[in-house]
């Protein structure tokens, strides 16, 4: 296949990939971030221990995380159809992507927040912070570098999942590599799509690292 034919194909795939990845990442954080915070806050050693709620949350998150994405995708067909209007296609696949990614986000956020020094939290408490002030003005800002680093990892993971979206009729670079490359024995298409994915992942990782470093004031 000539570059004139390949180029629009790759651009098209890139657009579809971003179209799935970016909204999925944002929506996963909208759900996963509060859940991650809730996990930390309600833990036994947290600032508002609620052991039962914490245990229930933990079970749900672990359950969702243990189902492989490709299987979750199929299991969710009826729900996806109800929520998104259709079960397959680039747009529809955002729903299972979010369902699969938000528990992962919750665990990532939990890990980042847990890194905040216990003493710093106590200092904030000693100054008369409300729980909300503690979360918004101390926990999140203090964990920010780690949270951003986690966000880059989550984005790359969701990007990886989008490649499997071809199984549900989704587009994107992954789908092009499989349906228009591998299945049609057009190896050049497969390689070009794969290389485009690699470059995309590199860009996300490098800029993620860069922003993380810039935001981290714990190093001189």
């Amino acid at each position: 296949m000539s570059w004139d034919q390949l180029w629009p194909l790759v651009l098209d795939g890139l657009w579809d990939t971003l179209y799935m990845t970016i909204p999925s990442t944002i929506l996963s954080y909208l759900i996963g971030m509060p859940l991650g915070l809730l996990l930390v806050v309600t833990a036994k050693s947290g600032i508002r221990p609620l052991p039962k709620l914490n245990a229930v949350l933990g079970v749900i998150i672990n359950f969702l995380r243990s189902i492989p994405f490709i299987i979750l995708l199929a299991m969710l067909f009826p729900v996806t159809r109800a929520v998104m209007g259709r079960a397959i296609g680039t747009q529809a696949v955002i729903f299972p992507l979010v369902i699969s990614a938000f528990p992962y986000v919750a665990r990532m956020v939990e890990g980042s927040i847990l890194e905040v020094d216990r003493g710093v939290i106590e200092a904030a408490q000693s100054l008369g912070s409300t729980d909300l002030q503690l979360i918004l003005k101390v926990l999140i800002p203090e964990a920010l570098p780690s949270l951003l680093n986690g966000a880059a990892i989550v984005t790359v993971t969701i990007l990886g999942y989008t490649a499997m979206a071809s199984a549900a009729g989704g587009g994107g670079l992954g789908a092009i590599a499989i349906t228009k490359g591998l299945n049609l024995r057009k190896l050049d298409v497969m390689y070009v799509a794969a290389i485009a994915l690699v470059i995309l992942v590199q860009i996300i990782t490098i800029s993620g690292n860069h922003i993380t470093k810039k935001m981290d004031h714990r190093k001189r």
Partner: protein
Amino acid sequence: MSSKVLLEINNLSKIFADAENRVIALNNISLTVNEGEIYGIVGMSGAGKSTLIRCINRLDTPNEGSILYRNQNILDMNRQTLLQTRRKIGMIFQQFNLFMQRTIAHNIRYPLEIAGVDRKTADQRVKELLEIVGLEDKADAYPIQLSGGQRQRVGIARALASKPDLLLCDEATSALDPMTTQSILALLQDINRRLGITILLITHEMAVIRQICNRVAILDGGRVVEEGEVDEVFLNTQSEAGKRLFGVLPERASEDPDVPSLRIVFDGTAAEEPIISRLAVETGVYVNILSANMNHLQGKTYGQMIIEQPASLDEKHAVISYLTQQGLTVREVNKQ
């Protein structure tokens, strides 16, 4: 100094218990802190002092007793009142516990932010506080760029932002070198005098107590074993823990000299002068110094000295009577 009671702790007990172990961290502790004083709680590690100070602003919850702050029991307060009270009780920490992602100015500003103080007032207050702790030029630095002593100054400024009446110091100088410790203690004393803020500090270092505290409680095994004016407690230490902390007793009996000797205790009341040289001149007895552990603080001499007993009884009595006249406490030491 006003003797109005600011903080009154009554019969406070705290027990840490799990399935197997039961540790009594605080055992029926009662003490009062008056307005305007610097009150020290001293004890070895594990004595319970950290648990005690953390109970005062309810970072830890005791099992029994009451903590009256301006006659209100902190342990009975609802959440809202507790938060308001915490803003009137500042706290500084051994590890400083600064917000690492905030600049120095924003660390100090935090208490004002959460109290909803308007921007202009807050800016002004942060500026004042930076001046008080002598860090005007570090406003835009981050904590990581500061030395330990500077970080503790930021901790102090942050604790003072909401104009507290009481400052709790949790081993505030224990992570600092001796020079820096001196400057932080001087700052605390300055804050106490100039701003009239009552200070309650805990430490394992007797020097800290002797240097800036008015009154002291000695904590041992979760109990207050001695309490009173610092000079008084030092002079008449009764408890084992007190004797160990003040260095009045050798930590091990083997450190006692083998020969009959005299222990001279300097409690800060004796005039600062070469007492042993004067002894020789005045009594004509030349004594042999076996060991000495002396501290000079604020123009006062504290510590102990062990000298060999003169051979003759007359000389011994002359020495004892001279030293006693000078305001020193003298005891005979005879190894068993």
